[in-house]
């Protein structure tokens, strides 16, 4: 049995969303997002809990949680930097940007850096997302400011 539960705040959000869908299965992604919002990642324990709440088998939740790349299946560092590597960003200097970011954050365990596919910010290339917040048209100076504030 799962020992996981939603906090009262998250439970409220879940119940509000529940009213919007004709079948509980539709709450799969919303529920997984809520778990990640609460815990920062999605444990198998939480998956079992979600399965119970949306009336599917636990394996179905596992299937979905492992399909979508934005779900973290284990705890990650507090600052998640995603650098877009797809064509428009690559043409505009993604590799140099990534190298700079990696050099700057080397030795710190506060960061997780991921190379990701197109983030839909092609007009602002090169770009990164820091904990989901987009930073576009990046230069080394801008990176200094953004990451420097955390270091």
């Amino acid at each position, binding site marked *: 049995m799962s020992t996981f539960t939603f906090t009262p705040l998250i439970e409220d959000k879940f119940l509000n969303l529940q009213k919007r869908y004709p079948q509980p*299965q539709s709450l799969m992604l919303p529920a997984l997002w809520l778990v990640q919002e609460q815990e920062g990642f999605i444990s198998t324990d939480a998956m079992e809990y979600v399965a119970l709440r949306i009336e599917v088998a636990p394996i179905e939740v596992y299937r979905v949680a492992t399909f979508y790349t934005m*779900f973290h299946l284990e705890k990650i560092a507090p600052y998640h930097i995603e650098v877009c590597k797809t*064509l428009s960003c690559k043409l505009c200097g993604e590799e140099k940007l990534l190298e700079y970011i990696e050099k700057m954050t080397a030795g710190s365990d506060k960061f997780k850096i991921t190379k990701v596919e197109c983030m839909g910010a092609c007009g602002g290339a090169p770009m990164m997302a820091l904990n989901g917040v987009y930073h576009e048209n990046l230069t080394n100076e801008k990176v200094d400011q953004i990451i420097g504030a955390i270091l």
Partner: protein
Amino acid sequence: MIVKIVSKKFDITDAHTLQVAKEQGAYSALESAFSKTPSEIVEIVTQSGLRGKGGGGAPTGKKWSLMPQKGDKPHYLIVNGDESEPGTFKDRQILQYDPHLLIEGIIISAYAMNASEAYVYIRGEYKFFIERLQGAIDEAYAANILGENSTLKHKVNITIHRGAGAYICGEKTALIESLEGKRGHPRLKPKKPEPEFYFGNPATVNNVETIATVPYIVENGADAYRQYGTEKSPGTMLFALSGHVNNPGVYEMPYGSSLLEFINEIGGGVRDGKKLKAVIPGGASTPVIKANEDLACVMLDYESMRNVGSSLGTGGAIVMDEDTDMVEALKNLLEFYHHESCGQCTPCREGSGWVDNIVGAILDGVAKKEDLDTLLDVAKTMNGKTICVFAPAVSGVIEGFLKNFRDEFENYIETGRYVKTHVDEITEVACQTSLE
């Protein structure tokens, strides 16, 4: 060249708030919409020639008319905001600058199709844009524009459904699978045209920009929309520029505008005064066009793009300058497809990895001459043998690169490195087709 229909309020400060949006005319199309019957609205949209703006270009009115007229099953409107095609960043402009336009479009479209629940599926990475739209939705609920307490003739609920990082969920049936709580695996296509189904109930999937165009058409009539664009591609679209261009961004223009003028005049030309080498015209999945005299006559509409062996796609053009290594560019795109193949169909799952490896070997200088034939052979096998158009698109991408830049691939195999090829300046040519 610029015509502002969907982007009318993009430059107005705080137009994302209900107050400013209303001052600027938001929700004014509702009165006109509710004075008509739902089928009259479907008719106007059909007459306008509005085509889906998510990449496929299917006629919107025709799609809507597939929704059943009878029966007691609930109808659903699903808005596709999964915008994940590399080179495409247009729907986010609507979500950021004019979310109330989308809400207005949803209300009218839902009324036309007798849907009282609408879902807007937005890619998970668009956190800010999701919050923007949610803010506007909350305001619309508070002002009794949406929901049970709506004072309008047709009551609609709008729910944002956040994706979680799967490109394939932009494919409409994969999107519905995802909305139903499953992996984003595209569904088999029906033999005859029929609506989509969400838990067995009729549903229509339309792109964000398509829905945002509806208020203008309903308020001003089909002819007003048809005054822009071409006979077969009427109206306007949000075209995007990225890559080696001076002014990247999103610009609304009529269909049939010149691609080269778009790059040179609106885009400010290629960066650093370099020459243009190639353009991927409508998102990564559209075959690359080589910069030569033919390109000078390419227009931004479905028909013109087809004539040069490419496609208009999402209208997001990626510009490449004379120094671009085309082998590296193709490798970059194939990595994307390798990563994003949903894995459902074998030719795609295996093929996308195989082609990525072959081009990787070319880049690493360990490929043989016959590998190019293998590459084309695998590309051919990927085409037409899968459930959705993902694999055929990969196939077209590979063929486009090899058709136009085969010499670069051969040079690479021979020498193991990038050899710069000569790029001609595009000279002025008289084009046969031009926008009237």
